[in-house]
């Protein structure tokens, strides 16, 4: 940790992560001279270390299982998650939740739908929330980051002031505020709210690593060869900045699923529950939690395992891409 400029620490931390991109290219060059090979790509050398890392493998297996489940759950699920075969067992006053029975190993939910099927199919919407929130956050953050990092000057100053203001609101609070503003809450508003939080973080990350490269040798060389400004930005600076963005994206997949659950809990989530989603299932289970804790526990466990999988992958990727830990 450098004690240099005692400015806002949250920015510094993001910038620290961004700096790992600048460092990698010198290290790749070193590896090339030692091995006397034409050079090992960043991805190849990271993969070499990741392949033997049990933490990464565990995370990758969890993630893979999750994706496979999301793809095939409609075929595995014994019942239609939107149909209500147990509706005649739901007694509003005495017994709102049908218990386990033949054909319905986990019983039903408060609308008489098969809980196991909803849990299985819920993986689909959960994956969609995670992936789209990450993609939206990445797209927004990258556009701002490229604007700031490529142009510099007043564009940079303007973009970064906006980013700083967004960073001055605690992140989850920003997601709550945005979701609360939606006049008609839906899956899309949830995704946007969760993604918006990530935009300033991605923007700062990308801008940091692009600035670090502006005066590096390979960019100077490209400029000297007369490569157009657009190609310098997109072919030379951007690809070298992707490392930290990939790491951050993996971690964001986890946080966006958890944040979406928090939104549902506060009543800011998607009110349409025909297509189940774990966060929404967990959030809406709160009213039955004392008599039927299993309605909350199962979706919560699914979220925890999947979030853990993404986090394990992200953390080991960060280690693999960090020049400090490459030896």
């Amino acid at each position, binding site marked *: 940790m450098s004690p240099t400029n005692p400015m806002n620490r949250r920015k510094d931390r993001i910038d620290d992560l961004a700096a790992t991109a600048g460092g990698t290219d010198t290290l790749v060059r070193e590896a090339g001279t030692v091995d006397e090979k034409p050079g090992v790509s960043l991805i190849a050398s990271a993969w070499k270390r990741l392949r033997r890392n049990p933490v990464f493998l565990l995370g990758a297996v969890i993630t893979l299982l999750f994706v496979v489940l999301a793809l095939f759950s409609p075929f595995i699920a014994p019942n239609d998650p939107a149909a209500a075969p147990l509706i005649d067992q739901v007694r509003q006053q005495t017994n709102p939740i049908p218990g386990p029975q033949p054909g319905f190993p986990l019983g039903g939910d408060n609308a008489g739908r098969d809980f196991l099927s909803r849990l299985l199919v819920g993986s689909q919407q959960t994956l969609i929330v995670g992936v789209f929130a990450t993609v939206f956050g990445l797209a927004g953050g990258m556009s701002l980051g490229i604007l700031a990092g490529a142009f510099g000057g007043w564009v940079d100053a303007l973009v970064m002031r906006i980013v700083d203001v967004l960073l001055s609101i605690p*992140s*989850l609070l920003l997601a709550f505020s945005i979701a609360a503003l939606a006049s008609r809450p839906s899956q899309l508003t949830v995704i946007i709210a969760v993604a918006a939080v990530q935009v300033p973080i991605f923007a700062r990350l990308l801008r940091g690593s692009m600035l670090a490269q502006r005066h590096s040798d390979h960019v100077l060389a490209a400029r000297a060869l007369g490569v157009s400004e657009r190609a310098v930005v997109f072919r030379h600076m951007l690809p070298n900045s992707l490392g930290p963005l990939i790491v951050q994206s993996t971690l964001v997949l986890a946080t966006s699923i958890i944040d979406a659950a928090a939104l549902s809990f506060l009543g800011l989530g998607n009110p349409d529950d025909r297509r189940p989603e774990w966060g929404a299932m967990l959030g809406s289970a709160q009213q039955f939690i004392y008599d039927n804790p299993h309605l909350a526990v199962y979706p919560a466990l699914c979220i925890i395992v999947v979030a853990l999988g993404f986090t394990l992958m992200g953390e080991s990727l960060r280690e693999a891409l960090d020049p400090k830990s490459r030896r």
Partner: protein
Amino acid sequence: MARFIIRRLLQMVGVVFILSLLLFFWLRSLPGGTVSAILGERATPETRAALTKALGLDQPVWVQYAKFLGRALRGDFGASTKVLPGADALDIFFSRFPATIELSFFSLAIAVVLAIPLGYVSARRANGVLDSGLVIASLVGVAVPVFFLAFLLKYQLAVEHNVFPVSGRQDSLGCTRVTNFFVLDGLLTREFDCSVSALKHLVLPSIALATIPFAVIYRITRASVIEVLGEDYVRTAESKGLTARVIRGRHVLRNALLPVVTTIGLQTGGLLAGAVLTETVFNFGGIGSALADAFRNRDYAVLQVLILAAAVIYVVINLLVDIAYAVIDPRVRTR
């Protein structure tokens, strides 16, 4: 040092001003606004128009903002429309503020008191059984949704086994209020049973809120101590034959704690957001639950005050962290 603080204060004013501007225009530009929230969907057009006019919502947005800013500078943020109809929004903030501060303080205290020693021990025996267990625990801690953990604690320790109270800030003991910090009030007025009751109510929400800061601070401490332990000056200190205590205090911790201080400051922002969830579960009556109510009801006045206040608190804490940084690290002071 004074110049540094003044510059940071000016920056802070700028950030808060831009934030107020963004927040104001953004809140006003959305459909389904305050009027529908107060009157409901079935109000007649006449009553809607009357209320729109009474609230000044018929004027251009920038006129509304100028008026808002003028009043805000005088400490008038308007009246709550839905959370506590008619109550002054700033008063709501101040009446709820002590509860959240109390909760955040205890959470952060739990997190710091556990995380730093455990992080140090973990780093000393890196890759041992305890270390691996703690690293896994910290990763799981981040993956658990805060409100679910809060529910789990409440269900197990308050509902099933009556160890701690289910909700609220204090039993009704007829306690005297001085500062509205209930634990402190009990100590000041020597009504110690009041303090004890308030503490009991704090245990579960504090633990729930402390998990994420604990996990983050623990991991930063661990990583930072591992890095410092490899430094030459630590080896020098060891070979000079200094006692383990001196090395730990003066060489390792003093250097390793720099990034930890930063992280603690950063976590305070997260505490505020976490408080929204934890306070709702435990019905704690702080800023968090007021925010949750304001979100649900689109109470703009309350939302504005609370979000601005959260940002101000966050920025102020970051300033304090930077000052603490200058105190710990003499290199920063010389600049």
